[in-house]
């Protein structure tokens, strides 16, 4: 049954062109198709199913989509067997990849608006392509704000990129941690506490959120409090996924399959179910 449809379920070999440790439990892999394979472009917010031979697959959002035009970057936190095996990949290794899948961030709709990016922990990875897009097409957007929260200073991802963006006069970048350590002389607390300081016009803003659901729920409250309309708040959701093509049923959330109807959703579509436990 060698059909195009079947191929969507069979991984393609991708070479690990580079691999590096981002934090103590997060690794980035730069992946390029093996041989003369062609890279399928991955839009910001889309994800690939990454396969470690013998271990299994995990859905991982792209953390950079245009790094070199021929490679895609994935930033993976070790959470279980599969992600542990993926994080152990070394340059030159080959892993399997299926994708890209899903609907990404609606960057076209954000043109001309103020953009507020709120990320928690590993949630910064799916938003990094957004920030790179904003950087490249800076004039197309209004004010740009990045509010990022992690557990501790040692969990901060993409330090180089963060410092680069913070060095620009047209990016407002704020970082906070749940737990400070000696030497941390910056914000401590929830990421929502950074919002009151951010400057944006709520009526003509777009907010993009990715992080733990509890964090996103509080972000939504804070953003709604500032007057950002729900259709201009977007979230990247996470659910169990096996097939990534809307067949296996695992990622169902209300009438949506997170893998194909998401993972990025506008708040007005999902607001009703966001607060329903075990939905």
């Amino acid at each position: 049954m060698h059909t195009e449809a079947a191929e969507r379920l069979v991984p393609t070999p991708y070479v690990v062109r580079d691999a590096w440790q981002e934090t103590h439990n997060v690794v980035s892999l730069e992946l390029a198709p093996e041989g003369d394979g062609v890279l399928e472009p991955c839009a910001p917010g889309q994800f690939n199913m990454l396969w470690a031979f013998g271990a299994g697959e995990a859905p991982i959002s792209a953390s950079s989509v245009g790094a070199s035009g021929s490679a895609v970057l994935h930033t993976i936190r070790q959470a279980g067997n599969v992600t542990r095996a993926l994080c152990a990949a070394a340059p030159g290794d080959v892993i399997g990849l299926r994708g890209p899948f899903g609907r990404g961030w609606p960057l076209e709709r954000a043109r001309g608006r103020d953009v507020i990016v709120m990320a928690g922990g590993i949630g910064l990875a799916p938003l990094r392509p957004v920030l790179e897009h904003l950087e490249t097409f800076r004039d197309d957007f209004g004010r740009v704000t990045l509010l990022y929260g992690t557990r501790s200073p040692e969990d901060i991802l993409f330090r180089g990129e963060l410092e680069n963006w913070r060095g620009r006069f047209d990016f407002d970048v704020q970082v906070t941690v749940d737990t400070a350590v000696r030497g941390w002389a910056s914000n401590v607390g929830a990421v929502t506490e950074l919002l009151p300081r951010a400057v944006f016009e709520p009526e003509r803003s777009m907010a993009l959120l990715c992080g733990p659901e509890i964090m996103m729920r509080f972000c939504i409250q804070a953003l709604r409090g500032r007057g950002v309309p729900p259709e201009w708040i977007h979230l990247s959701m996470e659910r169990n996924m096996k097939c990534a093509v809307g067949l296996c049923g695992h990622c169902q959330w209300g009438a949506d399959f997170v893998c194909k109807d998401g993972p990025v959703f506008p708040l007005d579509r999902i607001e009703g179910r966001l607060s329903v436990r075990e939905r």
Partner: protein
Amino acid sequence: MGTQKSGTPGRGDGRRVDPPDVPGGAPASLLEPAAVGDLLRILREQGYRTIGPTLQDEAIVYDEIEGLGDLPAGLTDRQQPGEYRIEERSDDALFGYNLGPRSWKQYFFPPSLRLFAARRAGRGFEIEPPDADPPALALIGIRPCEIAGLDVQARVFTGGGHVDPWFAAARERAFLVAVQCAQAAATCFCGSMSTGPRAERGFDLALTELLDEGEHRFLVEPGSARGREVLAVLHPTPAGPAERARAEAATRRAESQLSRSVDGEGLPELLEAALEHPRWAEVAERCLSCANCTMVCPTCFCHTVEEVNDLSGERTERWRRWDSCFSGEHAYIHGGDLRPSTRGRYRQWLTHKFGTWHAQFGSSGCVGCGRCIAWCPVGIDVTEELAALRVGSDRAETAETEEAT
């Protein structure tokens, strides 16, 4: 597609070779019971694997049958919530029962299917050539609600974005010999789901077993060009108005025996509004979260994948296996299970089947076969649960209205 045995039936360029036409005008004809055996033989000669009802482990289940003798003649099934029993009939009916625990979905959506195999090669891997295509099946004795179930799954597996190649190929090749229901089990509720007890379309041949007044014959209606061709070989005798009338009477008898129903009016909206209804906690007290309902359901499609490695670690296979929203790993993501309670799982199953399914696939996910009622070990009855949710929700709405006024 892989290499094929020549002469495999139902092959084409990806489309049905002979789309079923409207059977309304097709003349019905009559066959003797022995001709059903001839039908099996002819279909097997044409390269079909004939699958039909057969008695196994005190239940009538679908499996490969070779001849008339494999059919459970003279038997019937008695069903109640949490109960299924085989009993003897007073006649020699070949199809004198309703439904057993196995639906036809096992042939289109196999319980275990290898998606691919791979072997380590250098620092990477090589994918091994894919498995063979599904066989051409003749489904003998598929019931009207089961044709509807197959249609529901076809919309899931081939109607949306991704087309499942196994399902599409198996469905395209399948030859459907339907049997119109002449009786209803106590668990049946096809009438209210508009899926039975009589099928008007979706089959190649449809049989109605005529058993009155010592007679034992079959009224046959072709539903497709393929069906007509096969029927012609059997040299049936034309059916007269009397036989047609008796076939209609058989359908009416089954209809009159239907004792359960689901009120589908506004059900998706009602369920969406009833997510915190106290009934969910109440049914969770009885539900064992055993997943039987999802296994016997002809439309449930959830599956998982498993990596199967050999001992050397050099070769791996990915298998797709049936899963259930009642299983502990269904909603697991790092850090925990998003749907850990039986209340949450039962609610997911029911609200999906009767509610969100409409938005996803354009119909209810239920065809009223009643298997989930019979095979629930504690006899939970979906029709009763839905009625209870409706009553409570009506009350809640009324209360709100009263407060407002």
